[in-house]
């Protein structure tokens, strides 16, 4: 169980915009659906589920289980402008691996919010005692890939023509890993 005492917390972006970060609650379903409606179609092509269907988002909101999927929302006032999720397996061989997914509203890109959300995911990953964080991106999503790299994620593998968009075209999938295990010796300066 990750402690969520740090939420809600305020952050300030480079341009002075003030946002609130907090875990998603069931009452956020409409806000989150509105957020996904504003995501450009070319980005939505790579989503795992059809978030243009409101029932999909409502289902997420109804079945929130922070120990499996912890969604952290970035809000400007009442509007969701960013969504980062930490996916975990409670048991089994991948229980020390967390998967990170981040989506940013188009008008909040290139403002440092993506980096802030990745920082938040790293913090939560540490608190969950994970050994690795894993992020996946389509090779065309270079700004996102560079943001993950800047936060210490490294290319683990690129799968060629591995995933298809909603129109059926194939794309390369980049898998990035952030290694969290360390020894006390490594951490002493």
């Amino acid at each position, binding site marked *: 169980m990750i402690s969520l005492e740090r939420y809600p917390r305020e952050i300030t972006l480079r341009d002075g915009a003030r946002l609130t970060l907090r875990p998603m609650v069931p009452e956020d379903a409409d806000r989150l659906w509105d957020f996904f409606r504003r995501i450009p179609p070319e980005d939505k092509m790579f989503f795992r589920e059809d978030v243009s269907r409101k029932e999909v988002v409502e289902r997420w909101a109804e079945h929130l289980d922070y120990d499996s999927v912890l969604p952290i929302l970035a809000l400007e006032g009442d509007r969701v402008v960013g969504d980062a999720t930490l996916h975990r397996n409670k048991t089994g061989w991948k229980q020390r691996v967390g998967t990170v997914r981040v989506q940013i509203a188009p008008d909040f890109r290139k403002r440092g919010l993506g980096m802030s959300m990745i*920082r938040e995911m790293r913090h939560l990953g540490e608190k969950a005692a994970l050994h690795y964080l894993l992020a996946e991106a389509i090779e065309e999503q270079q700004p996102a890939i560079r943001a993950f790299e800047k936060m210490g994620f490294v290319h683990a593998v690129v799968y060629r023509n591995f995933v298809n968009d909603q129109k059926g075209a194939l794309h390369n999938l980049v898998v990035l890993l952030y290694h969290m295990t360390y020894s006390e010796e490594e951490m002493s300066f």
Partner: protein
Amino acid sequence: MNHSAWYNVPAWVRYNFTMPLSRMTCPACGADLAYDSHQAEKGPDGKEMCPYLGRPYSKLRAAHDLIYFGKWRKMDATTTDIRRAYHQIGRHLKAIGEVLGTKDLPAARRDLGKAVEAFQAGDPEGESPDSLRFMDHALSYAHTAIDDLLHEEGLPPHDPMEFSKWYDAVEVPFKEEW
């Protein structure tokens, strides 16, 4: 205050010549600044105000920027410039480590760990291009660790370009795309 580096006079002067930059070391944060005194903000006492004044982690920011805009990154850098920068990076990493020692921020400690790793891979005597690359990596990870500290307090990341006019700066492009 002394004068060493030079700057182009403002356009309104209608002459094209250079003037020496003013220099100041901030007694509070230790920032070593070189600036155009006409453009510097002045305090109530008429003296130039350190741009880091009142900002969280001002010492770390100032130390970072001094290295970031340092002569070692210029084309005409000497071995002495590089050696000096190497030791500045070492002291900077130690200072960050001291601050992080009082915080429960494992991700930031990890960033600092990577900075130390890159720093130790560098060799200021070797004159190899790899040495400069490792120093650059060390400074970059140090910057990330400072941003981790700022993020934890809900503050925006440190942008060295915001302070570039206070240094005899080399153009260093920085772009955050996401």
